[in-house]
C-alpha cells in the first residue's frame, strides 16, 4: 500500500466517520431533522462521489448524472410495484439498469470531447427524463408513491430515517473505498494519463475508449444505488429525480469538494446544509444558491482549470 493510497483511504474514512459521529449524536439527543439531513447528505454524496471520479480522475464533465440516480429510483419503484422489495435484488438491478443506459449512450457520448461531451450527456439524460415522464404505468409526469420500503433479507431496515442514514453511509463508505482503490490502480492511472494527454496515453498502449467507458458505466451504476435509497427516503419516485438541475447541483458538489474523492462528501454536505439553512428563511433558496455558485466560481480564480485538465 503506497502512502498516497493510505492517505486517500484515511481521508475517506474521516469524511464518512464524521458523518457517522454526527448521526450518532443526533440519534442520542433525538434530533430527527439532523438524522434526515445526514441521510440526504449520504445519499447525494454517493451520487456526487461517482461524478467526482468521472470529473477529477477521467476529465469527463458529465451533466447527466441525475439520469443514473433517477433510473435507480424507477427500478426500485417498478420492483416494489411487483412485490419485490428485497435490497439484494433491487440494488444490483438498479445498478444494472443504469449501467446498461450508460453503456449504450456512452458509446456515442465518449466519442465527443469538450463542449460536445457536456451537451450530449445532458441531452441523453433529458431523453431518460422524457422517457420516464411518458410512462403511464409509473404515473407519468406526476410520478408515483413507492408501494413499500425496501427490506434486507426480509428485515425492514429502511423503515426509519436512521436506517436510511446508516444504509447510505455504509454504501458511501464502500463506494469511496472502492473508487479510491481504483484511483490508485492501473485503471485510475490509465484514466488520468488519458485526461492529461490523449495522444501520449494512446501511444503507450492505453485503450482510451475502453477505460473511459468502464469508468462511465461504473459511475452510473454507483449513482443508481443512491437512487434506490432516495426512493425509499421520499417514499415517492417522480421524473423530477432525472431533472437536469439535479445534475447541475451534483456538479456543484463535486467542484466544492475539490480534487480528492473524499471531497465529494464535503461538497454534498456543504450544498445540502446551505440549502437547508436558506430554505428556513425563504422558499426561493435556489436564487441564493445560484448567487453563491456564481460567486464561488468567480472567486476561486484560475486554479480550477489547471486542476481538471484542459479537456474538461
Amino acid at each position: 500500500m503506497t502512502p498516497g493510497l493510505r492517505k486517500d483511504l484515511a481521508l475517506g474514512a474521516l469524511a464518512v466517520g464524521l458523518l457517522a459521529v454526527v448521526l450518532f449524536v443526533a440519534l442520542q439527543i433525538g434530533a430527527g431533522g439532523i438524522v434526515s439531513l445526514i441521510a440526504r447528505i449520504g445519499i447525494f454524496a454517493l451520487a456526487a462521489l461517482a461524478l467526482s471520479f468521472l470529473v477529477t480522475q477521467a476529465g469527463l464533465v458529465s451533466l447527466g448524472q441525475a439520469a443514473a440516480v433517477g433510473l435507480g429510483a424507477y427500478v426500485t419503484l417498478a420492483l416494489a410495484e411487483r412485490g419485490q422489495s428485497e435490497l439484494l435484488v433491487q440494488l444490483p438491478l438498479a445498478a444494472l439498469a443504469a449501467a446498461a443506459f450508460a453503456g449504450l449512450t456512452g458509446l456515442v457520448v465518449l466519442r465527443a470531447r469538450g463542449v460536445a461531451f457536456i451537451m450530449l450527456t445532458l441531452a441523453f439524460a433529458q431523453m431518460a427524463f422524457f422517457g420516464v415522464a411518458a410512462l403511464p404505468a409509473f404515473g407519468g409526469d406526476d410520478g408515483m408513491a413507492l408501494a413499500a420500503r425496501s427490506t434486507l433479507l426480509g428485515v425492514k431496515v429502511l423503515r426509519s430515517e436512521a436506517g436510511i442514514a446508516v444504509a447510505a453511509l455504509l454504501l458511501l463508505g464502500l463506494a469511496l473505498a472502492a473508487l479510491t482503490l481504483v484511483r490508485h490502480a492501473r485503471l485510475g492511472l490509465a484514466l488520468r494519463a488519458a485526461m492529461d494527454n490523449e495522444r501520449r496515453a494512446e501511444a503507450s498502449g492505453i485503450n482510451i475508449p475502453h477505460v473511459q467507458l468502464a469508468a462511465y458505466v461504473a459511475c452510473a451504476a454507483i449513482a443508481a444505488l443512491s437512487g434506490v435509497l432516495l426512493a425509499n427516503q421520499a417514499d415517492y419516485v417522480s421524473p423530477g429525480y432525472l431533472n437536469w438541475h439535479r445534475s447541475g447541483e451534483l456538479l456543484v458538489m463535486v467542484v466544492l469538494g475539490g480534487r480528492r474523492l473524499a471531497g465529494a462528501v464535503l461538497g454534498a454536505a456543504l450544498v445540502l446544509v446551505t440549502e437547508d439553512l436558506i430554505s428556513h428563511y425563504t422558499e426561493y433558496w435556489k436564487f441564493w444558491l445560484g448567487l453563491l455558485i456564481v460567486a464561488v466560481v468567480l472567486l476561486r480564480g484560475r486554479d480550477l482549470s489547471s486542476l481538471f485538465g484542459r479537456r474538461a
Partner: protein
Amino acid sequence: MSSTLFLLQLLNGLQFGMVLFLVAAGLTLVFGVMDFINLAHGVQYTLGAYLTALCVAKFGHFGLGLVAGLLGALILGYVLEWLLFGVLMHRSHLEQVLGTFGVILVVTDGLKMLFGPAPLPLAVPEAFQWSVRLTPTLVYPAWRLAIMLAGVVLALVLWWLVAKTRLGMLVRAGSTDRETVSALGVNIDKLFRLVFAFGAVLAAFAGAMAGPLISIEPTMGDNILILAFVVIVVGGIGSVRGAFFAAILIGVVDTLGRAFLTGWLAGLVGKPAAASVGPALASMLIYILMALVLAVRPQGLFAGAGGK
C-alpha cells in the same frame, strides 16, 4: 391520418424548427468562436418573452413592446457578459457550466419571486389574429406563418453576415483557429462580445415570438436550451447552416412524432401496447435521431471548414 392533418403538423414542425434555429444560431456561434459553453442562453429566450410581455402590457402595442423587450434583453445580456461571461470565457468548461448554471438558478427563481410561478399573458398581436386558407381544407394561423417567415429572413441575414462580411469572415476564422486570428491582431474578446450580443437578441426574439403560442413561465428556457444543444451537435458545432437544417429536422421530427407515432404504432403492435410506449418513444425520438446521426458522423452533419 388525413393529409390535411399531416400538413398541419408538418407546418407546426417547421414553425417550431424556426424558433429552435433562432435560439441555436447564437449558441453555435458562441461555441464555435469562443469554445464557450453557455447554459444560460435559454435565459435570454425567457427574458425576451418576459420583457416583451411586460412591455406589451405597458404600451398596449405589440410592435412597440417587442422592440422595448428586445432592447431590455440586449441590455441584460450585456450586463451578464460584462459581469460574468467575459471572465468565464477564459476559464475551463467545468467552470463555465457551473457559472452559467448559477445564472439559470438566479434568473429562474428571481422571475418566480417577482412575477410568481403563474404564466404571464401575451396575446397574438391584433394584426395577426387571422388565418390563411392554404388548401381548401387547411386553415393556418397567420402568426405561425409570420414566425416562419421571420426565421427564414433572419437565417438569410445571418448567412449573409457570416459568409459575405468582414465580421463574418473573422467569426469563421475564429471558429477554425482562434489563436491565429488573435495573433493577427483581431481583438477576440470584442468579437466575442458582438457575437454574444447578437445571439442573445436572436434568442430573446425567439422567446418573444413564441410567447403567444406557449406559456411564459420561469422555466420556459430550460427545455428549449437542451433542444438547441441537440440541434447544435446534430448540425455540427459552430455551423450556422448546420444549425438551420438540424433545427428544421428536429422541429419536424419532434412534432410529427408526438402527433402520429402512437397511432402508427397501434397499427403495428396493437392499441394497448402502443398507448403505453408510444408517448415515451415519441418524446425520445429526437434524441435517438441525434444518437444515430452522431454514430455515423461524430462531428455533426455540417461540421468542418466548409460547413459555415
